[in-house]
């Protein structure tokens, strides 16, 4: 669905990404891991055309990102960015409905279909009672879930999530990943940035390790999350064992 072919991105005269290649297939959850400044956010921004690529190409559903309009991209790709406060009194429902922009023309009002997608998304994110609440009165974690709900309400087939769990409590971190997983099981795909290696191991089909704008490893969690790779990317020693319930990789830092 989304192919990243050997791209480089330049920021301020230095390479933020160099020679990164990656394919996001239908139904797949891809998790990007790396230290701060490794280029994870830049990669996500490149994937929906927010930052231009200096070389290489990104292909969305068979067409190069460069030839697509904003509307065409937004119909296929929805973004959950790191949260953003607004100084205007916007309700949670209005916020989620703003994600339906590409389905309306000028002067248009949202259709019943728009509203039902929005309410459903709020419900999925455990926010059914929050429709009329104002965004600037919500807690950071609640706002973050509204931001996720907006991305879900678009019905875009590809979700790009930049640290969606940063403000969330334990229960809602799991909820976030379960919702993303569920969408992927229904045929969507997702690219998620997180710093939680265990959540990555649990939910990812593909784990991608980035360091200094380069791709270090990519593949199944059990292949990629090795002590050597983690040492190289994060500079910390870890212990690896099997999760007692799921049997997946479990990562424990050694301080």
């Amino acid at each position, binding site marked *: 669905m989304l192919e990243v072919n050997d791209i480089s991105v330049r920021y301020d005269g230095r390479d933020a990404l160099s020679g990164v290649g990656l394919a996001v297939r239908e139904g797949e959850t891809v998790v990007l891991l790396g230290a701060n400044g490794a280029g994870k956010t830049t990669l996500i921004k490149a994937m929906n055309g927010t930052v231009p690529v200096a070389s290489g190409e990104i292909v969305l559903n068979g067409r190069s990102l460069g030839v697509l309009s*904003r509307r065409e991209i937004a119909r296929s790709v929805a973004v959950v960015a790191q949260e953003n406060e607004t100084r205007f009194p916007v309700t949670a429902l209005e916020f989620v409905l703003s994600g339906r922009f590409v389905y309306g023309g000028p002067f248009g009002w949202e259709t019943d279909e728009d509203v039902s997608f929005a309410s459903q998304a709020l419900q999925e994110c455990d926010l059914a009672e929050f429709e009329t609440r104002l965004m600037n009165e919500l807690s950071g974690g609640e706002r973050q879930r509204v931001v996720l709900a907006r991305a879900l309400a678009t019905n875009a087939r590809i979700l790009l999530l930049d640290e969606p769990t940063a403000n969330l409590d334990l229960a809602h971190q799991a909820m976030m990943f379960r919702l993303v997983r569920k969408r992927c099981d229904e045929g969507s795909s997702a690219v998620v940035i997180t710093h939680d290696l265990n959540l990555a191991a649990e939910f990812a089909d593909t784990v991608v390790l980035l360091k200094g704008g380069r791709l270090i490893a990519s593949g199944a969690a059990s292949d990629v999350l090795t002590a050597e790779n983690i040492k190289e990317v994060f500079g910390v020693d870890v212990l690896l064992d099997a999760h007692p319930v799921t049997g997946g990789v479990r990562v424990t830092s050694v301080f």
Partner: protein
Amino acid sequence: MYLFGGTLLVLLLVVLAGAAMLGAERLPLFDLNEQQRSILFDIRLPRIFLAACVGGSLAVAGAGLQSLLRNPLAEPYLLGVSNGAALGTMLAFVLFDQLEIARPILAFAGAALATVAVYRMAKSRAGMNVERLVLSGVIVTTFLSSVIVMLTTLLDAAKLRSFTFWLLGDLSQATRNGVYLSFAAVIVGTIILTSQARALNLMMIGERDAFDFGVEVGRVRLLVFGAASLVVGAAVAASGSVGYVGLIVPHLVRLSVGSDNRLVVPFSAVAGAIFVVFADTVARTAIAPRELPVGAVTALVGAPLFIYLLRKR
């Protein structure tokens, strides 16, 4: 929403009727004599209609700029846009004295240049915070003011006095042509801004959000800047710089109907008309037969609200 719209329309009619009756000469609503008719149709009504158009113009410009710049304090007067238009108007006076149409055209150009200047000054790599935008507005405003003051030295004493008055907002020079032009500008401007309202709803949340969810951000910015410059240029060319209308009116409208720009923009047009017609009626009756500049009246209300909005958050 329908209730609010209905209330606004009724209020508009009441204020228009009140403004028509009140003044240095009190007029009855019906059975006017020849002299009274002449006062009403030749002097008072053009002025009232101009006040309505100017009010609507400044209010929609404020609503549009606030959403685009993500800043409830954005306002044509405070950002220096009005002063840009004022400088354009003055240049037209100095360069093409008799050519009336040159004034709104140069006013539009001045407004557009000031808008772009303040936007570029306020924008930094880290984005645009509230204070930076307001400060950029202050810089542009004071710079343009000093240019305007220098230009006034080219004028003779009699013209100078009327100019000083005009700079603070003066509706007493209303002409038929001025009214027609302002009316056309406010209608076109409001339609353009309303057509971008859904995009502005996203811009108001964040420029990145808007971009991510399919808004052609550059195009929307161009349309909103263009429409705001159009309405402010027409308003200032006809009536000088009336301040704070674009701050007060959208704020009150948002308190009533929420933040959806599809409501805020058109309702601001009507509410702005009500507000300036009312303020102008106060300006010409409070110390009758002498007059206050209408801008002095609106600033009296607007400045405290600005402080309140700055402290809130």
